[in-house]
């Protein structure tokens, strides 16, 4: 059994929280540059330039990409050949450390009396047990301007693919300027109520613009992206061709009676960071 100590996990999580909040992944910056070349609205191009400049300033490590430094979700792949103690506490302590040392905003409150926990915990932890002796940690920072306009709906089997397309377009249209377009759209199809939501979130975690391996899902991703960009919402909602940078879909088998669909919207700033221990 390979042992990984809680201090190591804590430090890695802290580092990933800081990295994700200050460094926009390079594939996102490339996508913004491509979008700027494609955008025909001058105001839209101006917004895209501001986002690129914002990422450059954040990278210097003083000002986070956004004042909403989000709720932290940690996705773990735990090799069955490793031994870890106090995993939950190590991760929460890592988030506390990262948010303190990284000068990141503490945005987590109890849901009804709205009392701030003052250290941005608890983070939400998802675990998968996999083969091997490695621990994969992915930290995803989720802002709520875009989380607030996300939704899950239980469609009927008869609504099929067309129903999925309509639901995604409805949510994006309703969201309008609120989630800071250009957006990235994660879609989860199948499973149960919470499985579809988790699939949508996992879809956002896929490196930006990488299509699904299955041809029919890839086609659906492309079709949705084209239709979303046809809505005319544009950068910052000020009109234009670039409303979305990418649509990522994940699927899972579901029940004969149902068709759950989740739409998880993210702003341009896909704030993920990963490390393998």
């Amino acid at each position, binding site marked *: 059994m390979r042992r990984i100590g809680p201090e190591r996990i804590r430090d890695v999580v802290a580092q990933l929280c800081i990295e994700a909040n200050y460094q926009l992944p390079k594939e996102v910056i490339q996508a913004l540059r491509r979008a700027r070349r494609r955008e025909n609205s001058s105001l839209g191009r101006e917004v895209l330039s501001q986002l690129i400049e*914002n990422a450059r300033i954040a990278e210097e490590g003083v*000002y986070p990409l956004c*004042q909403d430094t989000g709720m932290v979700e940690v996705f773990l792949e735990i090799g069955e050949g490793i031994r870890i103690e106090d995993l939950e506490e190590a991760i929460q302590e890592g988030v506390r450390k990262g948010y303190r040392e990284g000068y990141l*905003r503490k945005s987590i409150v109890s849901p009804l009396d709205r009392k701030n926990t003052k250290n941005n915990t608890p983070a939400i932890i998802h675990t998968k047990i996999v083969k091997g002796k490695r621990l994969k940690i992915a930290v995803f920072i989720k802002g709520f301007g875009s989380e607030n306009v996300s939704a899950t709906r239980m469609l009927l089997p008869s609504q099929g693919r067309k129903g999925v397309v309509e639901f995604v377009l409805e949510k994006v249209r*309703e969201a309008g300027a*609120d989630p800071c377009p250009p957006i990235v759209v994660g879609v989860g199809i199948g499973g149960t109520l919470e499985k579809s939501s988790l699939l949508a979130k996992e879809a956002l975690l896929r490196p930006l613009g990488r299509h699904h391996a299955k041809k029919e899902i890839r086609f659906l991703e492309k079709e949705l992206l084209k239709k979303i960009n046809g809505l005319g919402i544009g950068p910052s909602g000020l009109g234009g061709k670039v409303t979305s940078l990418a649509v990522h879909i994940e699927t899972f088998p579901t029940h004969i009676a149902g068709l759950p669909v989740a739409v998880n919207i993210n*702003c*341009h700033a896909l704030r993920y960071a990963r490390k393998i221990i």
Partner: protein
Amino acid sequence: MRKTSYKLETPLTVEKVKKLRVGDRVRISGTIYTARDASHKRLIAALKRKSLPIPIRDQILYYTGPTPVRPGKVIGSAGPTTSFRMDPYTIPLLKKGLRGMMGKGERSQEVREAMKRHQAVYFAAPGGCGALLSRYIKEAKVIAYPDLGPEAIYRLEVEDFPVIVAVDTKGKSLFRRE
């Protein structure tokens, strides 16, 4: 769309905001105040008790909750948050003479109508640009509700803060949401 650029100094007046039209670019300088969800709730309660901690008449409220400030810096990242969450609290403030608001996204029809009645404007600040916008903030001080942490009310001194008129005094809106 007509596009004019203006420089505006706070406090605003009805005369200053009346000429603004949807799509105009404006650079704002002077004192503005931050407020978001929890501080709005308290402001409305304070309004009822007639004990507001900040001036409202002719002022601008900026919907933001900055990140913690690093030593030697003025403020952390401070971009706009989604404005419609403040809609349920906005009309009493407009009645009190609030002249401007800054945030991101669309406002409700009720708020737009009240803005027309009370002659106020709503500016869209560039969303997702918290790091970039911190440059235009020259001073920052928490002046009310420090216990709210990031939701406390800050008094900011801004210089040429870049915004676009998103709802004007005629109640017209910039955003397409058909």
